[in-house]
């Protein structure tokens, strides 16, 4: 029981902080969702309910917005999120091979989270760092000119 109450408190305070910063107007919904997503790692059902209640926006609409944008997640994610750019500029300079190697190395398909909760692997569209493709992003760190041999070293930096 006490555990659940604590989680509730945390969600409530994170949502409260986001609302204080961005306001309760509809215009603030995406900034609020983004901030709560950053603070909690994802948008849990209780966080979405709390936002809906506080901002007086129907839950269906809050969920519809939360599920639309790539940077928002309605599912829990691993401790580290690996994004691989699958757009053409990275693809034609060796991205295909690196992407295959990355899936093999992690034993994950795109969208999956590893059983130990360490990794979530996702593909992303272009992030505008194309001059150094292929590009792999782990959390907020961008790695450019990646070849398959570098992957184990890069992954070893994240516990």
């Amino acid at each position: 029981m006490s555990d659940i109450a604590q989680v509730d408190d945390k969600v409530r305070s994170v949502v409260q902080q986001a609302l204080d910063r961005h306001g309760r107007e509809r215009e603030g919904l995406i900034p609020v969702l983004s901030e709560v997503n950053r603070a909690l790692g994802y948008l849990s059902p209780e966080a979405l309910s709390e936002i809906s209640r506080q901002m007086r926006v129907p839950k269906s609409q809050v969920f519809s917005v939360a599920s639309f944008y790539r940077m928002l997640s309605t599912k829990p994610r691993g401790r580290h999120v690996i994004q691989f750019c699958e757009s053409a500029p990275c693809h034609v300079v060796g991205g295909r091979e690196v992407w295959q190697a990355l899936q093999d190395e992690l034993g994950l398909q795109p969208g999956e989270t590893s059983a130990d909760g360490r990794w979530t692997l996702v593909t992303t569209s272009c992030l505008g760092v194309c001059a150094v493709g292929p590009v792999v992003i782990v959390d907020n760190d961008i790695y450019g000119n990646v070849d398959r041999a570098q992957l184990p070293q890069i992954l070893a930096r994240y516990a």
Partner: protein
Amino acid sequence: MQMTRALVLVSSDRESMERGARQVFERLQQEIRATGLQDEVVVTMVGDVGRHDALPMVIVYPEAVVYGPVRPDDVPFLVEEHLLKGRIAAGLQASVRELSGRIAWLSARQGTLPAEYRIVLSRVGLIDPEDIEDYILHDGYEALGKALTTMTPAQVIDEISRSGLRGRGGAGFPTGTKWRFVASAKGDRKYVICNADESEPGTFKDRLVLEGDPHSIVEAMTIAGYAVGASEGYIYVRGEYGLALERLSRAIHQARQMGFLGRGIFGSDFDFDIHIHAGAGAYICGEETALIESIEGKRGEPRSRPPYPTTHGLWGKPTLVNNVETLANVPHIIRNGAAWYRQFGTKNSPGTKVYTILGAVNVTGLIEVPMGITLREVIAIYGKGMKNGAAFKLAQTGGSSGSIIPASLQDTPMDFDSFTRAGVSLGSGALLICDEDTCVVDLAKVLLNFFKVESCGKCTPCRIGTQRAHQILSTIAEGTAEMDDLKDLLSLADGMANYSNCGLGQTAAVPIRDIMRHFRAEVEAHISLRVCPTGVCPMSGRRAMVA
């Protein structure tokens, strides 16, 4: 490895041809062979190089020396002096006075190599983007002062119209006309939005402007606000651009402190302020009505148009939406005048264009060149040639919404009208250069996957069309497609192009049509021969060969 040392261009517009450009070109070829330079020097005829009286012209890169008028008899001297001895052929240079267009731009480059003259990027990498005083030292906020104290809003719009500036987001719509629409729209409140949701694959020009010169956007938006009668502006920055967001916030804060934003700017009765809205990851929000929906706190689904944002935009009010690069031109035009701006680029597409060069070239990166330069020049001069001396096969312009440009179009001037005439599009400014190891089916498959993932799903032609087209391209790549599938593919392309609600679905058809138009044989080989000519496609579903 074979490296091209010099590139020689001969103008070949109608007037040049009448004045003997063909003979000059042939004489150049002869002389270059005679001196044994044929492996190091490429000679090519290009179209119009700008308006001027010194035709025919010969441009020699990488020094970017402009000769003209050149007669066939001048050629031996030119080749011997410039290409053999490496010095400027005395007496043949075109006089600067007579020059305009691309040539004026080259002459104004102040000896930089490779030849560049920057307008949009003039301060990027030169000033401290976090220090407003550095911006002011480099003529910053001078244009705003000029507009507010010496010009009426109508005069500002006139100046922008006369400059011929066209939208750099990809569509090429005349900026002055758009401003006039918003200015004349009825409404008690109006808004100015800077579209900084740069998400076209391969494009990062706007990011470098936002990171390197954020005040130029603040200044341009304020000028735009004055011109159209808006007192509030929004910058919609894609959420992934963290540094750009940080620098813009700081720039806005500094501008407020110095009185460039707020009430009574420059002692006038004009008030203006700017808000930042960070995106949350959705390509479709680069579409202006989806962007507006997103600012309003909704899913980024494009609205039906008309009505256009110029009359019914943010919260239903008249709204001006301009791309970052378009806006970055504005202060320069106001400060230096429309005539100054018109000397660069071509008659119908004045000014410069920022490109990102990517792919199979020796040097990738960002360049700002005049409108009307050709792909061949970009690859040879700025890309420093193809990587490993490979042959150029195609370029994919403007991210995913651009076109696939085959090698046969590499001498087509890159400006809005020439590209439209050639049936291709300039897009947003990415140039993905591909060599012969690139498979067009594989490329189209990647592009369609992008559209499939990024489709917002609101309208059926795009939601189903991108899905199904990607599926068909995948079967072609696996070697299991039949010839009839190509018919389906093209009819899907027609459906997406004609019936999609917004640009995403409409442009999703482009790569399909382009590969079928320019590379049909290569696509068909995947089906009839079950072979990928470049060896890229897996062809894993290939039927066993009958013994």
